[in-house]
């Protein structure tokens, strides 16, 4: 059962990374304009470069 000592922290770590990524995305404002981002994928990168 000592495998649990390894697996459970690993599971928590992976979950924690997911949670951290979610918070990061939220703070970056990636949830601010869901509809706009869905459409921006159609815009060529170089056309908006400056």
């Amino acid at each position, binding site marked *: *059962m000592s495998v*649990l000592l390894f697996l*459970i922290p690993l*599971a*928590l770590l992976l*979950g*924690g990374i*997911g*949670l951290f990524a*979610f*918070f990061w995305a*939220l703070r970056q404002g990636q*949830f*601010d*304009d*869901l*509809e*706009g*981002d869905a*459409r*921006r*994928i*159609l*815009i060529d990168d170089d*056309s*908006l470069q*400056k």
Partner: protein
Amino acid sequence: MTQAVLSNDQSNITSYAPFVDTLDSNECQIYLFVTGATCAACIQRIEGTLLSHDYVSYARLNFSSGQLTIRWIGPQSKIDDLVKSIRDLGYGVNYKQQKNQKDETESFLLRCLGVSAFAMGNIMLVSIALWSYDTAEMGVSIRDFLHLIVAAIALPTIAYSGQPFFRSAFAALKHGRTNMDVPISLGVLLACIISLIGLFEHQEHLYFDSAVMLVFFLLMGRYFDARVRQKATSAASSLLHMMVQVATIETTDGKTEIIDARNLRPGMIVRIANGERIPADCEVLTGQSEIDMSLVTGETLPVAVKEGSNLYAGTLNIQSSLRASISKPAADSLLADIVRLVEKAEKGQSFYLRIADRASRLYTPFVHIMALITFVGWYMAGLPFMECLMRATTVLIITCPCALGLAVPVVQVLAVGRLMRMGVLVKDGAALEKLSSIDTIIFDKTGTLTYGHPILLNKDQISSQDMKLAASMAISSRHPLSLALVKSYDGPLDDIQVTEVPGSGLQTETGIRLGRAEWCGVNSKSTQENQFIELYLSIPHEHRLVQFLFQDEIRDDAPLVIKELQNQEMGIHILSGDREAVVKEVANKLNIESYDANVRPEDKVRFIETLKENHKKVLMVGDGLNDTPVLSAATIAMSPSSAIDMAQNAASIIFSGQKLWPIIEAYNMAKDSQIKIKQNFVLAIVYNIFAVPLAVMGLVTPLIAAIAMSSSSLIVIANSFRLRKGKE
């Protein structure tokens, strides 16, 4: 859709420079509100156009909210070129004030939801092992180890994600009240404490997973609820924040300066150009013009003003420029008076109790009493203290209003979303509930039952030559009748020089006149009494007079809508400030028996209050500033999107387009959503009828509690999705 519904006109603002912020980095920044962007190409065109200017450093359009942020280096006045370049692309641009503080509730709930979802996933992972093997197989030490991990995940999660409930419960208790959050908080906290004690006593079953799941499901309901409310308030507040204006003032050294109209003070001299809105109440110093007062009085025809006349804030100067002296600061204007009248009327309806609140009022004491009975009962029956507390907690958890908490918000989110796709914007969470209960509808006439702008009626009787002449003259005027004339003529126009005589009409150099009856030499007293608006064209050298008859036309689908409402046995009235003859004509055409003409706003309010005293539930549909207090006095109010800002703010529901049919759609949707909500309550109650006795008897294990709780929530959500689809 929202943006299209709410588009309003700021085209009379001559410069946006007063609204530009200067950032620390020496950059200028402005937030604008763009309407008409519908696709990726729009985003690209708008941002691309802005970035093609060398001085623009940042341009980003938030497609969901319509907000465009621009930053640039250089003078503030550059903004006017930028605005013009977007307008030239064919999009609407308005300035939008930023809210002072951002509403954080929604994103906080989302964070709480994220944390509890993470915790729930990981606890399940461990729980599967706990539930699928009994202690004999697993061994006590492994089981305790797994319990310890569950506790390590659950406790911080509850402490963080439970905050919305704990805060609300604490606030309620502080004021000596209870609400739905009190039993929730109590249940969750007790479950944690008992499980923690159980953990040290090496017990077999712990409640951590139930507590976390409970928090997750409840947060989901909260988040939906917050989203509906957020959407509603942001729609309303964006209207308020768009009500900005600039004014051109004369400074002491004779120069002019453009300032924010909120900074106007009495005694300042303003210049009001043709086509501008009056920035604040003022008195004309020099100049003659005509003012479109429809915003204030609802009257279709403009009023002539000259030196010494008083002008009211919000009305439109449609003829020639004026110089005026401000008499009252913007905050004391007539517009502000009407706002106060609205606020007064709104206080009258704040006693309305939402169905969810009524349910929780009955529910909360019930839950507490059941838990208490369970505890005392088992204690008297001789069970140990901890076991009694455990069973009481099970009652709290199993009765916890998950299903009840989801019953209303899920239906609301769906109904509001579907209505929005049909062009109906619901601004207030309780609106659908109120709408479903109405039995009387009151319509305003101008702009609601009718289109609100006059249409030429006797085009067939006018020779095309006269029509061409009249339209060529009318093209140089902004009078509503001139606009209607030009609109109904689609041939080529002659270039004719005309002078505009304020209050009378238009005149050419050769003496041809287009204007009022008396001015064109017609002496007809009888014309005042009929339902038409008249305009005459007099051609002196041919001794001819041509009569143009205008009428405000009834909306295409108004008869259909009225008939449908009459089929549903709804009481229908028309209340209008317009002339008797006009109102009668409309009422007859629509087959409405009850109507009142020449009604002032105060009388309208009184009329509605009398109806309400007779226990009628009144829906008011109106669009003008004069309707605004009435809209607030009614049980619920609707406005077409063409309505002025004030009316849109007072109305809980706004519908777009040229049709009245959305009223029926909204009403049907409201009724159906109420049925679904009631069904959800019944489902939740049935669940409790089965679950509570079992919990009281102590037969429910944490596993059953967790399964029962989540399945009841899922059933309620599934039932909500049965809501009518409606036509898009």
